[in-house]
């Protein structure tokens, strides 16, 4: 893949990730976890895909763009720390888990989802300056099992269908 194509693909994926983070804001997570700024982490689908398909550096770039533009569009600087801490925790854990080579894409994305939610709780802890948000950690971890499986499933389906295409010509 040429570098131009790579950049274009990264941009498309970043746009897709932004769309996901916008869409998941419609999910009424606040009913269960009344911490504004905490998100399900559906945008992690893009992170998982990018990590496997383009490698860690491109995935990091996409993540950074998604977080910055997301905060810009939302006009909310305090949301930035949530998405940054969530996104980067997820990325780091997924890179490490993937290096282990024994886990499938499901395991990796579940670990990423859990780390994503831990990172967001950390962001809430930092923002509020006290330990109150820790009370939502158990429920968010259980939620991450579902969202992690979902992102893993979507990424797996994606790769399976892409296996029929000649990758080298993208």
């Amino acid at each position, binding site marked *: 893949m040429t570098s131009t194509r790579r950049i274009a693909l990264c941009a498309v994926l970043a746009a897709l990730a932004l769309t996901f983070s916008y869409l998941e804001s419609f999910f009424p997570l606040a009913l269960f976890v009344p911490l504004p700024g905490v998100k399900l982490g559906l945008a992690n689908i893009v992170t998982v895909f990018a990590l496997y398909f383009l490698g860690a550096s491109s995935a990091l770039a996409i993540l950074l763009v998604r977080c910055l533009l997301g905060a810009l569009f939302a006009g909310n600087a305090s949301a930035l720390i949530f998405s940054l801490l969530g996104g980067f925790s997820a990325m780091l854990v997924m890179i490490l888990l993937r290096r282990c080579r024994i886990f499938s894409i499901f395991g*990796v994305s579940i670990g990423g989802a859990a780390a994503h939610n831990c990172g967001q709780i950390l962001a809430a802890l930092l923002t509020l300056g006290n330990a109150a948000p*820790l009370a939502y950690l*158990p429920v968010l971890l259980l939620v991450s099992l579902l969202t992690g499986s979902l992102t893993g499933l979507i990424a797996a389906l994606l790769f399976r269908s892409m296996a029929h295409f000649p*990758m080298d010509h993208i």
Partner: protein
Amino acid sequence: MSMNRSVKLKPNAADLLIVAAVLLLAALALFRFFPGGARDGAQSAVVSIDGKIVERLPLFQRAQRSYTANGYTLRVSVEDGGVRVAQSDCPTQDCVHTGVISRRGQSIVCLPARLTVTIEGAPDGYDLVVGQGVAE
């Protein structure tokens, strides 16, 4: 540039390790931050603004309080052994929607006002005692 051939697309036994780890962490967090879980008579609602505790309201006694923090005003109400944010002029209203909390470890968070209400159990012990009690 092509996809790593060794990508595992089917869930395997090793994945269960991760699921177990997440469940364990959730259980630990549950155990750690909901120590008793049950209601007991000596609980209090700890109100913090900007991470600093401003008041401890005993849950066994009705009370109405107003707090102004970071430009927003919240009315906190203690009744029937529980506490809730009865009214708030914050844009998200998440604090009001949380409703009544009454168990140790539960909390209400208002991010715009940077105010939290957390339920704490009876103080677990003390280091010193003042006051001598009735003279012998």
